[in-house]
């Protein structure tokens, strides 16, 4: 865990290194923490999130889309949906932002060693899944088969397109892309993700399914996985909620006895079904 400042509300300052357009409304921001000690000691796991501040506008939580061991700065795939994300999109390299984190729990990839991994990502849901894919591919021998299913509303909404080739050509790995609706140039599959899962007839044997995407996608994906025989313990997702402090204090992300910022955002399905509320 990165050293947390004495006052947990105070962000580290960071410089924006790159701001790359991934889709018409998603940018990949890479930031570098200004304090060298903090930068060198920073460690985080796939699934964790951090708050990024556009000072004066506000602060929002984002899944960390990079891997810590690459020591290349923190990356966030940010979709422009509101005031803070709009301000972050407008920033030029060299601008100062704030970073608070890492927070939350993480995908227990150690527990998945030797298993077959199914990764299902819809739209911007790919952001927290990217470090999972990278970690698996960088430690390929330790994991079984890797099946990655990536979907988006349309071809121009697919994120991390530049990395697909390297993901697809890894040994024992397959990459399935799909879009809800195609365009003039799209030659690939046009189908909803749940239909793809059904088509692929994924095996639950020694498998774990990691899902991230819009709530409605997750709902229907769960139906298909259940039909294929996946047990709730084999299904993992990351929940989204309105968060303000990330410290388990402001209670906005409180669902049941859990705080999504501290007890999550990564939850197994058998944990989620015990929540009285559906978040």
């Amino acid at each position, binding site marked *: 865990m990165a050293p947390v400042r*004495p006052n947990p*509300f105070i962000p580290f300052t960071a410089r924006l290194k790159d701001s790359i357009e991934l889709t018409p409304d998603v940018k990949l921001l890479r930031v570098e923490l200004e304090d060298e000690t903090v930068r060198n000691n920073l460690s985080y796991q796939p699934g964790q999130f951090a708050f990024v501040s556009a*000072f*004066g506008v506000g602060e929002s939580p984002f899944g960390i889309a990079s891997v810590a061991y690459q020591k290349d700065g923190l990356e966030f795939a940010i979709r422009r949906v*509101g005031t803070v994300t709009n301000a972050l999109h407008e920033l030029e390299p060299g601008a*100062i932002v704030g970073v608070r984190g890492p927070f939350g729990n993480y995908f227990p990839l150690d527990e998945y060693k030797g298993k077959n991994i199914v990764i299902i990502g819809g739209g911007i849901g790919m952001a927290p899944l990217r470090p999972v894919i990278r970690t698996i591919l960088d430690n390929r021998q330790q994991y079984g088969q890797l099946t990655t299913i990536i979907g988006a509303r349309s071809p121009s909404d697919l994120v991390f397109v530049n990395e697909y080739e390297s993901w697809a050509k890894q040994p024992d790995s397959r990459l399935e892309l799909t879009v809800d609706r195609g365009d003039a140039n799209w030659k690939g599959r046009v189908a909803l993700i749940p239909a793809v899962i059904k088509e692929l007839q994924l095996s639950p044997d020694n498998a774990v399914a990691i899902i991230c995407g819009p709530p409605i996608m997750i709902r229907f994906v769960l139906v298909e996985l259940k039909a294929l025989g996946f047990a709730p313990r084999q299904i993992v997702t990351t929940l989204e909620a309105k968060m303000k402090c990330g410290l388990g204090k402001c209670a906005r992300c409180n669902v049941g006895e859990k705080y999504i910022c501290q007890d999550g955002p990564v939850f197994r399905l058998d944990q989620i079904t015990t929540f009285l*509320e559906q978040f």
Partner: protein
Amino acid sequence: MVKFIQKTDLLAWLEGIMRERTLVAPVKEEGVTRFRPVEKVADIVMDSGSTDLSAKDWFFPPSEVLFTMSKVDGQAVITPTTMAKEAVLFGLHPCDAQGIALMDLPFLAEPTDTIYAEKREKTTLVGLACRQACPECFCTSFGSSPFDSAGLDVLLIESGEGYIVQSTTPKGQKLLDSAKVTEANVEMPQPPAVNSVPIEGLVEIAPKLFNDAFWNRLADRCIHCNMCADVCPACYCFDIRDYTGKGGLVERVRTWESCQASGFTRIAGGYTPRPTKGARLRQRFYHKFLYMPKQLGKIGCTGCGRCVRVCPVNIDIREIITTMQKSGAKIGAGSS
């Protein structure tokens, strides 16, 4: 024989305290009693009963600057808020001390809210016992009582011409060094009777009633005015926003915000996990009676009765507790 202080000596002691520390005490503004730093001891309302706004205001004010940020030579300079002077919070009743103890649970837990923690360390709590109980309060339901000194550094119990003094912590004892406390043969008064509300089994019953139509019916008349949460000594949900002032000075401000606000759970993109009035209203009670006990080990209510007094549509927490108790497993749609 008990430790005792004459009323005149108490006021003199408070005046002495004011010279070096901030003295926060109940005052009256337009007929409303609330805790404010005082300039004159004469401004203090000594017999405030249960104040309209609670003592949590000092540790967790309605709005608070967490830090400021300004750009100096292209660098971001962040200045956190600190507490300059020590303080004494005077005149709070046992229910408010319970409320502060409840708020300590999330705020002091790791990672500690250092702003809150600093205020707690630097503030000494001098409470007043309740010689009269309000008709709507029920602190005894939660293990407290009108003369309860738990959570306080000093407890004063009014008797005759002054107050019986009980100091329960080294901090309290130290503050009393400058007070004229004597040994006196003063009778310990009887604590007033409090209308308790039975709470046994509430944590067990709550999950069974989660989907009951009761909550939607109750929410029919709720206007989500947030007042219950504002006056509650144990409600601690907050919002954080940035504000850019003159010269580009950025303030990150924390303010009260309750689960009753319609945008409380709304995330970017518009999806709201808790969209209905019933779900929002239910959250307040479930947070207090189920989630906090399971998460933090204590029920999040002090029985102070302020929410009962202040709700414009009489959503009465005592009535809700009793209805939940009576129902066991089922509440009919015929109740409010």
